[in-house]
Structure formats: C-alpha cells, structure tokens
C-alpha cells in the first residue's frame, strides 16, 4: 500500500474513533527505520473537534509481510496498556487496536507519540555521555518497576497465559528451541548443545510472576539527550514470566557495547543489581541469573535464525534481517560457545 493511500485510509479510520473528530487528515507521515517486527510510522493527524483544530502525534505499528518475531499485536497492545500510567514508567498511551486487515491492509495498533527522545544505538553506547550514569539508573529502575507491575487483572494477563513459577523457564526454553529447530537453515550444534545444557540444569523457580517486557535493552528506549529516558518501546515479546528473563536480556553482552565492567554498558554491576532489587522487590540470585543469561543467548539465536529465514525466503527484504541472521547470530553463537565450552572441559 502506498503511503498516500495508507494516510487517507488511516485518517478515515482515526476520525471514526476519536470522539467528536471531523475533517481528519494526515498532515505528515514518515516511516521510522528499524523495528522490523512491525512497520512503524510517525503520523501527525490534523482534525477538528468541538474545541477547535487539533494536531495529534501518533505512532502506527502495522504488521509487515513477515517480522523478526512471530507475535500478536494484541499482546503488545495489552502490554503497553498494562504499563501505561504505572509507577513512573515512561510508556506511550495505547489508543487503537485493529485486528481486521481490511482497514489498512494488515492488522495494526496506534499509540500516542512521545515527542522528545531518540534511540541509543547499543553498538555506540558512548554517545550517551555525559549522561551514562543517569540513564543507567533509570534503565535499571524502570526494569525493576516492570517486574513489580501487578500481573493479576492486568490487560496482559487477559491476553496471555500465566505459567506456574517453576515452569517459566520451561515454557520459554521450549518456545525458543522450537523457533530454532523450525527456522534454522543450517544445523546449530552450539544452540542445540546449549538447549540441552539448560534443560539439564534448570534455574530455581521464579521468585515472583512478573510482566516480562521481552526485549528490554538499549536500542528499545528513547532518551532526550539530557539524561532522561522518555519512552520504553517495543513490547511485542511481552509475556508473564520470570523477571530474571528481562534482567538477563537487558544485560546481554551484545547490548553492552562490549563493556563487561558495567551492566548494560551503563552502570557498575553492583549498582545496577541494587537498583533492580529495590525497584522490583526481588532478591538477586546468581544461579538464576546465570541460567537466564545463557538462555538470553539461546533466545537471541531463535530471533536471529527466524530473521535469516524471512530474509532468505524473500518474505521480508529489510537488510536488518540479513544483519541479524549474520553478525548478531555469529556473536551470540560465539558467546554461547565460549561460556559453555569451559564447563565441559574445553580450554578457553
């Protein structure tokens, strides 16, 4: 669908859903690069209502022909609703969810646009200076706050299952092992060995059942350049599970700018853990973290092989998928091999 056609259809759709709106038109529409799991557009919607003319900044997230992650937009929508207005989490307002592809050619949802902020490239974390410590403090406090969100009765709980505390790991490992086995174009001896290792050495049961963002990391938040995180984005892998899953993913070496001294490349580990504990109410358990940290590499491989397949099959020609299937896949395979090999007697 051409952007001009998309804009016309979207204006009509939004006018019908905004109370009292008339003469709606899209004043501007720009596709945002990245976010290959959804086609993401920034839209200025101009309209009139009883109080006069208005312009509303919106973000439209539309399903692409294929995506990095095979998820339902209703789960992302529900996760954003679960977090919006809770504690001091900077989360956009979830506005419309449309599962009928007739409206815009594919299912989509719409959220309010947070006007100030830009993403931080996880491969260039140094760009955040001189606000690294401030961003790090908010990064781990918000991560803990997400873990502390109420689960029972939340919009997310209504859309997804709630595992038993001792089954969180099993559900996630089974899911991502299946993704790897279903989508890998080549044999994956490192991933397969890692999956077996994780099965033989399960983590302790979850200390609590939490909202898990699923992709909480540098690159998936906006910051204002003055030391404030203004938005936490990309909730498409959200689910209910063990909060260690998010902690391990957020501090995965790939998102740390190769800085192993600072958690997530932002703040020293002891400070990060203390902030996360305080905000989440969880107690840090090294054994649980070790398991979920290794699992994070496996989960990443599941995403990367799915990306590679979508690109190779021509379902989605976004070059970011080729990059994921190549560079980031190789990086996580190497991390797994170097961490697991010594456990089985191989010298580093």
């Amino acid at each position, binding site marked *: 669908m051409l952007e001009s056609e998309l804009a016309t259809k979207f204006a009509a759709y939004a006018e019908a859903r905004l109370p009292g709106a008339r003469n709606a038109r899209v004043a501007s529409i720009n*596709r*945002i690069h990245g976010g290959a799991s959804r086609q993401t557009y920034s839209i200025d919607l101009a309209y009139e209502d009883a109080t006069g003319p208005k312009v509303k900044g919106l973000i439209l997230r539309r399903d692409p022909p294929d995506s990095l992650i095979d998820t339902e937009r209703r789960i992302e929508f529900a996760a954003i609703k679960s977090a919006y207005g809770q504690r001091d989490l900077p989360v956009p307002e979830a506005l419309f969810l449309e599962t009928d592809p007739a409206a815009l050619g594919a299912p989509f949802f719409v959220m309010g646009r947070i006007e100030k902020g830009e993403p931080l490239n996880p491969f260039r974390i140094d760009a955040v200076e001189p606000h690294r410590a401030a961003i790090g403090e908010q990064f781990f406090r918000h991560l803990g706050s997400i873990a502390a969100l109420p689960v029972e009765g939340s919009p997310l709980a209504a859309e997804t299952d709630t595992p038993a505390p001792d089954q969180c790991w099993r559900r996630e490992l089974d899911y991502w092992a299946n993704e790897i086995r279903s989508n890998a174009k080549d044999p994956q001896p490192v991933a397969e060995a890692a999956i077996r290792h994780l099965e033989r050495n399960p983590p302790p049961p979850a200390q609590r059942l939490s909202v898990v963002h699923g992709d909480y990391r540098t690159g998936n938040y906006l910051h204002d350049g003055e030391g404030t995180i203004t938005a936490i984005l990309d909730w498409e892998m959200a689910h209910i599970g063990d909060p260690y899953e998010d902690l391990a993913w957020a501090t995965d070496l790939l998102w740390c700018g190769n800085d192993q001294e600072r958690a997530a490349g932002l703040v020293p580990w002891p400070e990060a853990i203390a902030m996360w504990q305080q905000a989440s109410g969880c107690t840090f358990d090294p054994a649980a973290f070790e398991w979920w940290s290794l699992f994070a590499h496996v989960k990443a491989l599941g995403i990367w092989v799915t990306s590679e397949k979508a690109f190779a099959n021509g379902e989605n020609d976004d070059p970011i998928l080729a990059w994921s299937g190549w560079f980031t896949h*190789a990086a996580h395979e190497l991390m797994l091999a170097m961490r697991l090999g010594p456990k089985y007697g191989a010298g580093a």
Partner: protein
Amino acid sequence: MSDIGMILDRIGRKLVTEVAPKLEGDYSGGHAGMSGLMAVMAGEAWDGAADRLANEIAGLRGLLALAGETVSVAKSPSLKVSDLKTERDALARDLIEVQIVLEGRDDDAARDLNAKIWMHLMATSMARMPSAPEFPDAEE
C-alpha cells in the same frame, strides 16, 4: 577486475559514506547504510569462506573418527562454497547426534571427546565471527 573482496569493500564503503548520508531522514537511508556495512563484511568473508569451511569439515571428520563413527557423508564434489557447505552441514548433523550420546555417558573417554567437540565449536564460532567494519566519518 577479479578481486571480488576489494570490489565489495569499496561498494560498501561508498554506500555507507556517500549514499546513506544523502538519504538521511528517508527510510531507504537506513537500508543503504546497512547494505553497505554488510557489503564490506561480505568482501572480507568472501575471501576466507572456502578455507573456513574446509577447516570445519576437517575438524568434523576428525571428531567423528575419534567417536568411532562410520561417516557416510560424501566428500564435496568441488571447492564451491555451496558444495562445501552441504558437506559441512551433513557432518554437523552427525556431530550433534554424537554429542547427545556422549552427554548421556559417565566416563572419562566420553568427557574427553566432548571437551574436544567443544573446542571445535569454540574455534569454529570464533572463525565465523565477522569483524565489524569501522566507518569513522559516517553514520550507520
């Protein structure tokens, strides 16, 4: 010109340093930058691809021999990367099965061979890791 690695490198750098900045703000600018980055990486990988696969194949055949396996995987009919990859993949599938058996045993011989398999996996993972190109004057 037949220096494919050099051609890919130069094309990639042009995309990143000249084309992508001119498309800044447009969605295709991101595509151009990412494509250029990978063209440079492909130039580097192209040169070493057959060598890397041949090393992996030799390592896999050695490990399967140590395991006492009768390897039925045919040798590659050529040095084409696609042929070598077919052979490597078949051997890797066999290695996965061997490692599963070893992990189920509780003896020193099994542990020793499993350690050798892990050394192979560490070495091949390291060899596969592309180096990320540096573009000091350009944005991704």
